[in-house]
């Protein structure tokens, strides 16, 4: 009799715990929904769109002839095929490194100078705004990165190895947080990026507006801050590892719908 009562109490306590947890999740979902209408990423989209056609740089030219992989000037649909191989640069490039190449060749900017610029400043802020607009032009489209060039396949394999590479003071790799289903850091769900995490999740959500600091985060900055939190040294902008990781995540996300630019915590 006494045991039964105890079990009853324990069961009640368990239920209460489960309920509280559910209402937290519901509350957070409600909060996120409220923010969707009026995503400040729109401000950066508008800036990026204007920058694309504006004559700028030493050559006083626009970016309208920039080839993002689908031919000069084709923007719609380009985002969901990047990173990919570019014959002119003889490199696999992501959206941001490709933009820097275009800014150098078409507008005459110094690529090395842009790459050195901190996020959110000068021409780097412009690269982010451009990437935000270009991503928005593929909103609702599905990821389909080409893997036909040998270098694209090699880049994927390098990315996979970089994803699992443990190091730093805390022994973290990308996989420490993003290698399993249904995990969280604090209240943030962690997508499993070793496979397709689903529509609008992970790779298919960035660039995103970060609510916590009011900044527009490109994929390069997203990766940069992942490495910071991993306690790794500083990854170069457009470095081989960042392109390889983007290729790994992008290929894994094949078929996932892009919602970028999203709004994030």
């Amino acid at each position: 009799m006494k045991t039964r009562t105890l079990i009853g109490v324990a069961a009640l306590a368990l239920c209460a715990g489960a309920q509280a947890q559910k209402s937290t999740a519901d509350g957070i979902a409600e909060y996120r929904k409220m923010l969707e209408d009026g995503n400040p990423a729109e401000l950066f989209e508008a800036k990026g769109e204007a920058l694309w056609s504006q004559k700028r740089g030493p050559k006083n030219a626009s970016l309208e002839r920039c080839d993002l992989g689908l031919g000069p000037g084709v923007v719609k649909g380009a985002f969901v095929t990047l990173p990919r191989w570019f014959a002119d640069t003889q490199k696999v490039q992501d959206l941001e490194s490709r933009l820097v190449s275009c800014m150098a060749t078409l507008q005459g900017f110094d690529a090395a100078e842009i790459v050195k610029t901190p996020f959110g400043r000068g021409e780097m802020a412009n690269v982010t705004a451009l990437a935000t607009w270009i991503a928005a032009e593929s909103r609702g489209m599905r990821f389909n990165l080409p893997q036909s060039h040998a270098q694209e396949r090699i880049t994927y394999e390098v990315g996979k190895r970089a994803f699992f590479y443990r190091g730093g003071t805390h022994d973290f790799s990308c996989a420490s947080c993003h290698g399993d289903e249904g995990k969280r850091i604090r209240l943030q769900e962690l997508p499993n990026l070793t496979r397709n995490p689903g529509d609008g999740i992970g790779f298919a959500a960035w660039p995103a507006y970060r609510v916590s600091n009011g900044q527009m985060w490109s994929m390069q900055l997203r990766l940069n801050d992942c490495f910071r939190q991993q306690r790794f040294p500083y990854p170069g902008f457009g470095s081989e590892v960042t392109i390889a990781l983007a290729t790994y995540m992008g290929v894994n996300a094949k078929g996932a719908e892009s919602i970028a630019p999203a709004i994030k915590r």
Partner: protein
Amino acid sequence: MADPMRIRAQAAGDKTTVRVLMSHEMETGQRKDSAGKVIPAWFIQEVTATHNGKTVLTADWGPSISKNPFLQFVVKGAKAGDKIAITWVDNKGDKRTDEATVS
């Protein structure tokens, strides 16, 4: 100069919902930079909304409105083609006006 606002004004029946995003730091004046120096307050203080040139709303804001502010309100009697203009002025005297057409 400040970046442009994004204004969406959508009519449904005799009401028009206006959604505005403004590009602004909204610095509280209570934060410190990495060197420990207080970052001076810098925020939008006054917002004015007009419908075809007539003021329909004014607002006074403090620094606790979020960075890149969002504002939503409903104008009575506005119809497609009408003009909605928003002006903000910040505590440094910087000012910006943008206009949208009701759709």
